[in-house]
């Protein structure tokens, strides 16, 4: 565990030295901020006519949606760059397990995303100040739990793919392609199928957040789905690192 933490801490610090990480943070926070301002504006207009109170769920949905496109940029160099620079040789001859290395890399990227997510807490806090009797904090907690789980799953898959490649851009595009597939494509044929549609729907990333956790419903199925993706990503990464040793 301590090894995972040592690797994660270094990775987290590295993000703050990297312009790309700031670009990613900016590309998430700016659209969310604009979207938040629009929602506040529209709600304030409708409120005079007895419209509904503003909600954070659309903003949080945007966070997850942006993560599909931006998280590959955070994970692409995690292990591929170590292989390219040769520093993997240092880590693979240090007394740490291959799994600890991969898990540490993943945790480091997750910590960075959590830091961005923490900044977005400002939105529900602002809404809470304008709405009486305040917003339902349980829904917010559920929504943020969902955001963290989606991010953790995406980053784990990205870390796994990064371990396969030596070129970080190859890792980026493969990761992006996979996320695009999981989000948009897997669920598409579901409604045309007689049987098996449920399975495809379950595999689709998009169904496990917007219709459940983002609205305050926590299903065991959703949590199992995310944990499976995390396990799959970390397993892929560990296996890829082990294969590197044998070549």
């Amino acid at each position, binding site marked *: 565990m*301590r*090894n995972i933490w*040592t*690797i994660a801490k*270094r990775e987290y610090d*590295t993000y703050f*030295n*990297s312009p790309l990480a700031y670009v990613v943070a900016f590309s998430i926070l700016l659209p969310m901020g604009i979207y938040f301002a629009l929602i506040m504006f529209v709600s304030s207009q409708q409120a005079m006519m007895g419209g509904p109170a503003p909600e954070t769920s659309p903003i949080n949905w945007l966070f997850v949606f942006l993560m599909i496109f931006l998280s590959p940029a955070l994970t692409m160099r995690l292990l591929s760059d170590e292989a390219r*620079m*040769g*520093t*993997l*040789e*240092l*880590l*693979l*001859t*240090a*007394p*740490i*397990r291959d799994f600890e290395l991969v898990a540490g890399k993943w945790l480091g990227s997750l910590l960075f995303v959590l830091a961005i997510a923490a900044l977005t807490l400002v939105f529900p806090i602002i809404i809470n100040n304008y709405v009486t009797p305040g917003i339902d904090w349980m829904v917010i907690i559920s929504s943020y739990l969902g955001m963290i789980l989606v991010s953790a799953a995406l980053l784990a898959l990205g870390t796994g793919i990064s371990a396969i490649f030596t070129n970080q851009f190859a890792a980026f595009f493969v990761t992006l392609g996979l996320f695009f597939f999981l989000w948009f494509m897997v669920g598409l044929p579901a409604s045309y199928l007689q049987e098996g549609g449920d399975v495809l729907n379950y595999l689709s990333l998009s169904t496990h957040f917007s219709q459940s956790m983002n609205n305050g419903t926590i299903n065991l199925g959703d949590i199992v789905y995310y944990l499976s993706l995390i396990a799959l990503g970390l397993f892929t990464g560990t296996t890829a690192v082990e294969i590197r*040793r*044998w*070549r």
Partner: protein
Amino acid sequence: MIKVSGLTKDYGARRAIHNLSFDAQQGEIVGFLGPNGAGKTTTMRILTGYMPPTDGEAIVAGYDVVEESLEVRKRVGYLPETVPLYTDMVVFDYLKFMGELRKIPNVDARVDEVLDMVGLVERANGYIGNLSKGMRQRVGLAQALLHRPEVLILDEPTIGLDPGQVVEVRKLIRDIGKDRTVLLSTHLLNEAQNICDRVLIINKGKIVAEDTTENLQARLIGAERVILRVRGEADELAKTIKQVKGVQGVETKEDGSVEFEFASGKDVRPEVARQVINSGYDLIELRPLGMSLEEIFLELTGSDNKKK
């Protein structure tokens, strides 16, 4: 401390090392000598637990490199040939990170200590990316020394250093080698001669010779060769020398000097010198050539590139 038997490694169809066996004791500095692509780095990578061998066994610091890889890695300090470093990190932070991975107690103090050993204290807060090649080499060395390893494996430790630093690093390695095991690879033969207790010459994945540097020289040299130089023209010089009893293989060189041999143990130099003086020449040089490790190396590896 290092015991290797029957070690073999294949990269696909290419056999990088073939049935390698050797050992190294505590307090011994063993040099690994060989041309590029001979299998030095591959062997070192197996010994450090970076990659498993295709066949054979290696015991390092009492543990098997495959079965107990983590235990081996705890006890080995390794400087890879390419000296991989995180260029975006500060020297101190990098060493601290590596120290934390090795769970060194009181890591800050130890990093300061090691920085002092390699003479990088002033650059502790500089970015690794801004360091010269020699300094990076020393950061790599510091990293290998951090956890006071029982076994130190150094892949070309002095490459890229300036002459002053080479002397310092060699002294450092000799000091460490007094109570620990050091295996270092080099293609600088004088380096092997200079710091190693024992040399393994490896070529095309096989050990072709293993001995102390002195013994290697003695084994290959049956006769001693001498260079003789006199002032001015010396057309008749070779003839004069040939008359001395015991002189063999006289050769006149283009620059006017003369080389000859005599059987080991039968020193004819005083007699040759007398003859030269008596013949009216001004003797200015009479020097043993001795077979250098370079020549031994070329002889053993059958290398084509004749660089002397």
